[in-house]
């Protein structure tokens, strides 16, 4: 009996050590221009000193999957190693003419649109490989968007834990309650990736959700 208790105790300790050493694949998903790269940059910069990708006001700035390996996040004395995966924004329509408004030349806009379509396809393919996903939504926009529902539906079908982040809470138009009402079954954390606001709550939720990874 005593031997059994000791055996279980050591087994638990060793399994926890190895579990923590393994990288958790943390994906950032959401519609274009919600702030996925801004949030991933903020985390990477805080814990590695380097950013993951370029941000811009022009939608579809991230057009291919970007990685940052072995990002060790420390929170309240605990450490988890993540592989950060920043994905291109998922959209159902891409029109190169929309990019012309940002003073991009036609040829460049067409190239950007083509790359953006490939980016969406890549993001969808990568859904299978995630351990944990952060859905980044712009809290100034209407959350009742089919793309958001489709992404969450796919993650639920794959039993991947989901955290919803309501970004841009620093803006006047921000409405977290609307996001909470749209996704009542999920935890919603309001943050400002740009100003690093409320990231403590974000890390707490990520650490909590990490325990649910199967």
């Amino acid at each position: 009996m005593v031997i059994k208790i000791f055996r279980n105790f050591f087994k638990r300790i060793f399994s926890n050590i190895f579990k923590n050493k393994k990288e958790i694949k943390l994906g950032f998903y959401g519609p274009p221009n919600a702030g996925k790269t801004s949030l991933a940059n903020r985390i990477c910069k805080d814990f590695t000193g380097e950013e993951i990708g370029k941000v811009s006001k022009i939608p579809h700035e991230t057009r291919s999957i970007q990685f940052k390996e072995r990002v060790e996040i420390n929170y309240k004395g605990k450490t988890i190693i993540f592989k950060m995966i920043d994905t291109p924004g998922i959209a159902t329509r891409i029109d190169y003419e929309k990019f012309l408004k940002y003073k991009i030349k036609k040829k460049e806009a067409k190239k950007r649109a083509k790359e953006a379509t490939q980016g969406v396809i890549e993001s969808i393919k990568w859904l299978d490989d995630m351990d944990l996903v952060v859905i980044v939504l712009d809290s100034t926009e209407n959350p009742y968007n089919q793309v958001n529902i489709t992404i969450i539906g796919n993650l639920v079908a794959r039993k991947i834990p989901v955290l919803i982040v309501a970004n841009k809470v620093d803006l006047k138009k921000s409405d977290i309650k609307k996001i909470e009402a749209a996704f009542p079954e999920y935890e919603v954390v309001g943050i400002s990736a740009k100003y690093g606001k409320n990231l403590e709550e974000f890390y707490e939720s990520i650490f909590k959700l990490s325990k649910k990874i199967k």
Partner: protein
Amino acid sequence: MKKKSENLGRIKGFSIQFLPYSEIRDLNSNERIRKILKIVLGNNILILQGKLTAEEEARLIGDTMAMIGYVKNFKGIELAVISGNGNEGFFGRMKKGIVNSLSGGDLGAITIIGPATIVKEIKRNPKKIELLLNR
């Protein structure tokens, strides 16, 4: 005679097609998506009884993206699903589950899919849905 693809981008001549769920019930995912895209590429707004699975929706988005740039004037789709709000409670969900399994799909849901050249935006909130068309 003008090709169908040349008509994309014009609001004239679009139609609304209703597709009962029985038309896609026995199709596999590939066939369902092919059927839907064929209707949408024909300058139609599709109103589908029921809904696709989340995986099929993702595949539909992926296939749509693959067509942009290859089908003339095609800029993607607008998509919205109107379904129960999920607040039915345990017995409500159980009842819905039994009905759905007997009918082979969520017949209480409605899926709207239109080409982006015609449908500017599908605005939705819990209480209403608005279909905004391009002029």
